[in-house]
C-alpha cells in the first residue's frame, strides 16, 4: 500500500512543502512572528478550547480566527483585503474536501483560491501567503499543527515589496490636492 504521508501535508493542498522554503529563507526567519488572519467555517474544526475571547488562537497568538457560516461564504477579495491591510498571511479552513456540510462550499473556495493565487502573483504578492486547510469537527490537534506549519511557512517568506496597488492618498496623480482616501464611492467632484 502506498504511503500517503501525514495528514497535514496531504490535506493542505495549495502550498509547497515547508522544508523547501525553510532552506531558502534560513533558520532565523521563523523568529519573526507573522500576522495571520484565518477564516474558520462554523461546521469544520470546532473552535472550542483553541480560541481565546478575542479570536486569537490559544497556542498561536499571532493567528486570529474569524468564524464564517461556510468556507464558500468567503470572497477572495477579503483574503486580498487582509493581505493589503497588514496581515502577512491568510488561510481558509473548511470541512474535509468532499464532505462539506453545505455540500459544495469547500470545493468552491478551493477553486476560487487557486484562481486568486495567479492574481496575487501578478501583483507581486507571494501566493504562498494564502492557504487552504480542511479538517473535520474533532480534528483540532491536526488543525493547530497545520496552522502552525502555515504560520512558519509564511514567516520564512521574504518580506513583500511595498505595495504599489494601494497608492498613498496624498500623491494620487488623478487628484493631487484631494486628500480623500481611495474607495469604491469617490467623493463628488468639485467644479
Amino acid at each position, binding site marked *: *500500500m502506498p504511503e*500517503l504521508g501525514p*495528514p497535514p501535508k*496531504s*490535506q493542505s493542498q495549495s502550498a509547497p512543502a515547508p522544508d523547501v522554503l525553510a532552506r531558502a529563507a534560513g533558520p532565523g526567519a521563523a523568529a519573526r512572528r507573522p*500576522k495571520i*488572519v484565518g477564516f474558520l467555517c*462554523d461546521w469544520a474544526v470546532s473552535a472550542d478550547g483553541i480560541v481565546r475571547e*478575542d*479570536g*486569537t488562537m490559544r497556542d498561536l497568538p499571532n493567528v*486570529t480566527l*474569524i*468564524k*464564517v*457560516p*461556510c468556507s*464558500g*461564504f*468567503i*470572497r*477572495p477579495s*477579503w483574503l486580498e*483585503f*487582509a493581505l493589503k*491591510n*497588514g*496581515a502577512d498571511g491568510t488561510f481558509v479552513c473548511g470541512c*474535509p*474536501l*468532499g*464532505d462539506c*456540510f*453545505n*455540500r*459544495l*462550499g469547500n470545493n*468552491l*473556495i478551493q477553486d*476560487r483560491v487557486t484562481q486568486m493565487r495567479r492574481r496575487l502573483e501578478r501583483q507581486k504578492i507571494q501566493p504562498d501567503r494564502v492557504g487552504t486547510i*480542511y479538517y*473535520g*469537527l*474533532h*480534528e483540532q490537534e491536526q488543525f493547530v499543527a497545520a496552522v502552525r506549519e502555515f504560520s512558519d511557512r509564511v514567516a520564512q517568506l521574504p518580506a513583500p515589496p511595498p505595495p504599489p496597488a494601494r497608492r498613498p492618498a496624498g500623491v494620487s496623480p488623478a487628484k493631487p490636492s484631494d486628500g480623500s482616501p481611495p474607495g469604491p464611492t469617490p467623493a463628488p467632484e468639485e467644479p
Partner: protein
Amino acid sequence: MYRRLLASLLRWTLRLDVGINRVYPADFNPLYYTGGLSNLFLTILILSGLFLFFYYVPSYNEAYTTVQYISERVPYGQIIRGIHRYSADGFMIVILLHFFRNWFTERFRFSRDEPWISGMMLLVFAGFIGVTGYVLVWDQRAELLVVMTGNALAAIPGVGGWLRNLLFGGPGLTNLLLPRMLFLHVGPAVLLYVLLWWHYVRLRHPKVWPPAVWTLFSLGVVLLLSGLIPAASQPQASPTTPPRQLAVDWLFLLPYVSLKYLTPLWLIVLATVIIVYGLYIPYQLPETRAELGLRESGIAQVIDANCTGCELCYYDCPYNAIVMAPSPHPGVTKAAQARKLLAIVLESRCVECGICIGACPFEALELPHFLEQDVQAKVLAACRS
C-alpha cells in the same frame, strides 16, 4: 439524551472518515458517495430487470418455470439473475449507509428536510420492491411470504381483510396474485425515479454517480458474487406441501423474521412507528441557530442595484435557492444597466450558508446580519491587534 447520543455518533462517523481518508484520497472516500452508489445500483437493477422482464410470465403455474428457464436455458440468464439479486442487496446496503450517515452528520437541518423525507420514502419503497421481488420467484419462500403478509394485514382491526384483498386480489392464493405482484415490483421502481426527482430538486450538482473506480468495483463485486454464488430458487410452491421454514434474507425480510417474536398486529404498529419516526427526525431538534452557537446571518438578499444577471450565484448555490428571472428594470451600476436577468432568492430553500456571497463578484448579494463590511471590520481589527 438524544442530543448526546447524536453527538457521539457524529464523532464516530467523522473518526471513520478520517480512517478511510488515510487509505484513500478524500475524493475517493466511498462514504462520501453513498448517494451516487445507490444510484449506480438502481441503474444496474433497472437494466438487469428489463432483461428478466422479457422472459418472466406472471401466472400461477408458469412463474416458477420461467424463472428456472431464465436460469438454465437463457444465455447468461443465471448471471443476469444473480446481478439483479445481488445489486438489490447492494442497493439496500448503500441506502442504509446514506441514511445513517446523513442522520448522524445532521444533514437534515434548516431547509434540508425535503431531501430527508423523500429519502425516507425511497427507503420504504426500496424495501417494498425487494419483498415483491421475492414473491415473483414463486418458490416456497414466496408462498410463505404471501401467507405471512396476508395474516399480518388481516390482523389490522377493521380494514385488515379489505387491505389484504386489495394487495393479493382476494383471500388465499388467486390467479390475480402474481400479475399484481409484478405490477407492484415494476410500478414502484418507476415511482423511485419520481421520488428521486423530489430528492434532487433542491440540490444543485448532486453527486449522482460515484467515481469510476467505485463504479467498476461495485460492478465487479456484483458480477463475482453472481458467478460464485448463483442466485437460486427454493422448491416450487405448491398448495399440497406448505412450507414451514423461512429462508432468511436479513436485508429485506427482517420484518418477517421478527414475526417469530411479535404478533402481526404489533409488527405493523412497530413498523408504522419506525417509519413515522423516520419522517419526524428532521423536526425532532427544533434548535435555532442561537441555540447551536451560530450567528443569525439572515436569508441572503439580492442588492437589486448591483445585480448584473451573470448567473454565477445561480450556478454555485448548492440548494437551488437562487433562480434567475427576467429583469423588470435595469440596475443602477454601470455593469448592471444592460442586464437581462435578475437573481431571486427563494427564502424557503435558503440555509444562510452564504456561498452565493462568495460567488458574486459584483457585491450584489449579502447576508443581512453579516455584511461584507462586518467581515472587513473584523479583518482590520485582527490586523491591528
